[in-house]
């Protein structure tokens, strides 16, 4: 069971490494806010 506990955490770490980054969308959103203001 200890192995499964380590393995499940390792899977999460790998997922964070391959997960998409969406920072550009936040920048667009702020720009639109300023434009609206």
């Amino acid at each position, binding site marked *: *069971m*200890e192995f*499964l*506990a380590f393995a*499940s*955490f390792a899977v*999460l770490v790998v*997922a*964070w490494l391959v*997960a*998409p980054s*969406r920072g550009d*969308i936040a920048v667009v959103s702020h720009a639109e806010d300023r434009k609206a203001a």
Partner: protein
Amino acid sequence: MPSTISAGDTAWLLLSAALVMLMTPALGFFYGGLVRRKNVLATIMHSFFILCLISVQWVLWGYTLAFGPDHGGIIGGLDWLTLKGVGQEPGPYAATVPHQAFMVFQMMFAVITPALITGAFAERKRFKAFVIFTLLWATFVYDPIAHWVWGGGWLGQLGALDFAGGTVVHITSGVSALVAALVLGRRVGYGREALEPHDATMTVLGASLLWFGWFGFNAGSAITAGGLAANAFVVTNTAAAMAALTWMTVSWLHKGAPSVLGAAAGAVAGLVAITPASGYVDVSASILIGLGAGIFCYTAIQLTKRLRVDDALDVFGVHGVGGAWGAIATGIFATVAVNGAAKDGLLAGNPGQLGIQAIAVSASILYSAVMTFVILKLIDVFVGLRVPESEEVLGLDASQHREAAYQI
């Protein structure tokens, strides 16, 4: 005869009761942030009002129904009506604390359980209907099931393990929430307009306070201030963290961004799932329970949304599914190495425990679903469950309470 009361145990149990008390207003904030701003006061009021209502119901008749001397494994007797006989000496459930301390600790569980359901019917339920529902539900659903599991009733006699309320609190409230969502129907605008949370920061604050209070919920359920409480504390924290990480990761992969609200909901799902197991499993098991909570509860919520069930604040997905997973997981991972007074689960060589847990889960689901349906239908006939559409559009803060949350 010298008193057997332990100062340490009593202090821990009273402090735990206070921690669990905090969870109900914390739930109000958790839910309050998730609704639109026109309904935030009404949503917070649900939790705050239940804290008051059940505090009185419990001392008058709730405690004796749940924990009074057993009648046929079904319900407690009326011997302790208005707490007669519940005094400063230890009672039958805890040898080292005053009976009143045990009673008030249990009261806080009775308080938060119906409050959990309110997330399902948020933004559309008539306040009067909510009051009557809560009183009837506490009396005819919570009190009997608490007796079945913890008060010497038939599930406890069968050997069902539920350390802090996976079946009694979370399955009952989660299943009842699903029934309530189906009976009340969808909110006006559901599927046509965005019914977005109005304050995510309030929700994260609520989730954090829930997490804090949950240490009393689970570690306090050891009743004694010792190693078992410490184990429950550690596995509670671990499962909450693991479920938050898992939920956030799954939603990140699924929807492209690591959701803050997802992390908060995931933590609550982990806390729910570890609740029945917290006095029976070790830390490795708690990591797996948290992992399962994150995956199963997230998936359940996607399914309910796909089926267009308007469980407004995802009570069934988090509490119903999380509670069921926790109860089943207890039958898998329980070990007497953690709690010598309990029983082993499947992985420790006792597959029968898994069957007993399945019976407890099934009985809780069936009874709470049927009773909740009957109660709601009766209220609908005599009072009406929903506010009129015009009041729903206006918002419950104005239409039900004639107040506004924000002046800015």
